[in-house]
């Protein structure tokens, strides 16, 4: 499923003294099969954008009581925002948002806060029972088992345990299992590795790579960690003040170090090292993953490892 957003805008608390523009004429296409990154500092509109993708925030035109803006004479006709996710047209009121949410899985920041059931099994099965009302018990069990195993937990050991008795990293995996159990085609994650230790971060990213492809065709992650973006993403969009500034593969994006610094963002370690080498007159050509950077440096040295 391809995601196509055109001219999306969103204002929180419109018409009140608290009004805040979160999205301002955002257009973006995310192709099927991408591992897409979204970067931007707090309040740049990235979470608001992501919430549009499964209809948690609705376009004005998909709400009741929507009135089409009238074209005034002499004025340019008003831009109509539109958002399509695969065959779902999110700007229409008739869209089956329920069906959409089954196709677009969403893992929020600190997803362990959504755990509620008595056992891990029940919690993971929650989404499945909501979406597949007449699934047989055996099928449910098989799906839950597969989800728990793919996130790297031992099914037999955890299924009857209370999710609140698990460690922080385990809780997060259970929460992720609870989202992917329905095999969504698009998986959106808002800072999936936030607050984890370095090992936990690595494991979560490894998990996302396991999921990407067979389990979920498209993965979209929101992240502050540029190394994570450089290492994993096929493309990344940079949000600033509700607008998209760049949407480029990391290879091109992280060449714009100065522009990113100006936006209050960082660049990955590999890009910093590349700049440091450049200052000393050594040019390296890499796509900013650690492997390719090492290769490039070794090539400059004139020898293989």
């Amino acid at each position, binding site marked *: 499923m391809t995601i196509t957003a055109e001219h999306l805008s969103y204002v929180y608390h419109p018409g009140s003294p608290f009004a805040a523009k979160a999205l301002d004429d955002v257009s973006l296409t995310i192709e099927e099969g991408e591992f897409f990154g979204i970067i931007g500092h707090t309040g740049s509109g990235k979470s608001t954008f992501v919430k549009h993708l499964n209809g*948690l925030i609705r376009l004005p035109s998909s709400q009741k009581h929507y009135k089409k803006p009238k074209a005034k004479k002499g004025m340019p006709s008003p831009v109509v925002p539109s958002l399509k996710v695969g065959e779902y047209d999110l700007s229409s009121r008739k869209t089956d948002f329920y069906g959409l949410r089954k196709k677009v899985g969403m893992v929020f920041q600190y997803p362990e806060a959504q755990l509620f059931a008595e056992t891990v099994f029940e919690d993971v099965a929650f*989404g499945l029972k909501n979406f597949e009302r007449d699934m047989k018990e055996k099928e449910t069990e098989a799906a839950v088992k597969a989800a728990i195993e793919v996130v790297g937990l031992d099914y037999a050991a955890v299924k009857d345990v209370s999710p609140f008795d698990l460690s922080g990293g385990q809780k997060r995996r259970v929460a992720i299992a609870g989202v992917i159990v329905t095999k969504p085609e698009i998986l959106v994650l808002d800072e999936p590795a936030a607050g984890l230790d370095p090992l936990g971060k690595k494991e979560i990213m490894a998990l996302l790579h396991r999921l990407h492809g067979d389990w979920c065709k498209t993965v979209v992650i929101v992240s502050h960690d540029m190394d994570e973006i450089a290492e994993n993403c096929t493309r990344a969009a940079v949000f600033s003040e509700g607008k998209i500034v760049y949407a480029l593969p990391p290879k091109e994006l992280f060449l714009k170090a100065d522009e990113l610094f100006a936006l209050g963002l960082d660049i990955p370690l590999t890009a910093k090292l590349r700049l440091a080498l450049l200052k000393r007159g050594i040019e390296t050509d890499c796509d900013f993953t650690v492997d390719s950077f090492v290769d490039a440096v070794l090539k400059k040295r004139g020898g293989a490892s």
Partner: protein
Amino acid sequence: MKEVTFGQYYPVESFVHKVDPRLKIVFLIAYITAIFLAKNFYGLAACAFVLVLTVAFSRVPILKVLRALRGIAVLILFTSVLNVFFYRGEGDPYFEWTVFAVYREGLIFSAFLVCRLVLLAMLSSMLTYTTTPVALCDGIESLLTPLKWIRFPVHAVSLIMSQALSMIPILSDETDRIKSAQMARGADFESGNPVKRVKAMIPILIPLLISAFRRAEELGEAMEARCYMGDKKRTKYKKLTFTWRDLIVFLLIAGLVTGVVLLRVYCGGVI
């Protein structure tokens, strides 16, 4: 949940916003007293004049103030209808049917009551429009201080109040987040019979409760880490002090109450 703004503070700068919260609370109490002391429309007119002044110097849109009436519309309707039909006056009724009768006095009296309620609701809402919940709390704490003489834990009560207030937006955000997360997992909060809907709230309530407890614990630890010891010699960051504004307001209140009392004595009742 988006529309939940606690209290209804309207953030602009104005004369009324700057008045000491303690005085505003006293003002409201005095105003209510004046309304109930007023026995005729002259007294209410004086009250209305003070209300108009308050609204004019607060820069709160008049529509917002009128909206406060929505909440008590039913009450107003109920009391006025009762009074119109059941007030027994002298002379001939305009209309009579079994136990219902409409007298001239009934009409006047119910109009009088409606005016009272409207004034009351509008001025009370002015207090919350122009005072932040935190300032309101400070004001209440300060006004309750005399109760310390009878060992009433004024400080603890006001701390609980202000913490409860500051938790409301945090928990409302949290509710929003958890609700979104469960909706993304296909939870449905809008359809089904009441029992089903209440059951659907469980996946929100349990995580919310857990996070509320966690936050309370964290807050307690953070306060202990900073040597919080109850009200032993605590100073205030923002000390409430009276200014020239407060003097004006005080004179206004005093004037209103005396005026209403005089009108009551010299102009007689409404009927």
